[in-house]
């Protein structure tokens, strides 16, 4: 094989290996992980009304972000807790936002009706917002303070007697 052709083939092989290595590094760097500091902003379509909701527009209020899906069994158990918290804390500047991920909008609305949810609901069909928060399963809950910083995280379902844990998170979001 002529020397130039051989060198070209070797260069091409090296470029292929470098490309594959870059893809591997990129993939590892983009693994979902729970963020620290500022809560990742999002703009998502609302399920409970028309229009969109942007997290940044809630700056100045404490926000409880609950990631859920209608097909998630534990989400059914904790939905009444979030509704109760919304009713209890909304006058003190707390907003509960339900982020329905990887779900049919019709199913999500039926779920909301069945469980009497009145707090704002948004649809994250592709799950990009879920990924930006490093959510790996449903449900998960985050607490955002008035400055838009993440101050708490509950990676799992809340049971009926976990209202104290939820209130503690809200209190922290209000005071920090």
């Amino acid at each position, binding site marked *: 094989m002529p020397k130039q052709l051989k060198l070209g083939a070797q260069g091409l092989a090296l470029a292929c290996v470098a490309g594959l290595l870059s893809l591997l590094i990129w993939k590892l760097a983009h693994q979902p992980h729970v963020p620290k500091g500022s809560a990742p902003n999002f703009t998502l379509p609302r399920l409970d009304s028309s229009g969109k909701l942007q997290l940044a527009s809630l700056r100045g209020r404490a926000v409880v972000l609950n990631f859920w899906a209608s097909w*998630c069994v534990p989400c059914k158990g904790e939905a009444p807790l979030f509704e109760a918290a919304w009713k209890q804390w909304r006058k003190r500047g707390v907003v509960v936002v339900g982020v329905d991920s*990887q*779900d*049919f*909008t019709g199913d999500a609305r039926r779920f909301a009706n069945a469980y009497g949810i009145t707090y704002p609901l948004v649809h994250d*069909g592709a*799950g*990009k917002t879920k990924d930006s928060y490093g959510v790996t399963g449903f449900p998960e809950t985050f607490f955002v303070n008035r400055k838009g910083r993440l101050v708490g995280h509950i990676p799992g379902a809340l049971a009926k007697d976990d209202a104290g844990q939820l209130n503690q998170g809200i209190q922290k979001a209000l005071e920090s």
Partner: protein
Amino acid sequence: MRALLLAVLVALLALAAAAPALASERHPTLAELESEIICPTCHTSLDQSDSPIALRIKNFISARIAAGDTKSQIKSKLVAQFGEGVLAEPPKHGFGLLAWILPIAGIIGGAVVVGLLAWRWSRWRGPAVAPAGAPLGPELDRRVDEELARFD
């Protein structure tokens, strides 16, 4: 006349090849869509998943097939709900287009390289060798004689 016959033959072949695709588009089956749709939570095709959302999507597809939707309509409705990541094959625009172009470019590039190599090798005549019996130069002739004289 021969050209006309050839054109008709090509058209018939193209039609025969397109007919199954058209039938699949108009009357899709659950089985073929299960292999073309990705479960959003487990990232495998629907036919390999029994997760709650995969089962829900399978039910949705069955209902849409029964309602008479085409394959494209069903896929569009799923993309509207779950984004383009729900499709097993990458989109034919933007960054996804690379996934379509690169393999074809690779095949063409490989074929060109193989063709070039084959062409070069077919013209390869081996290393140049001095023909046997070619006369040596007078200086070299003299030195060979001297060396041989030593053995006498």
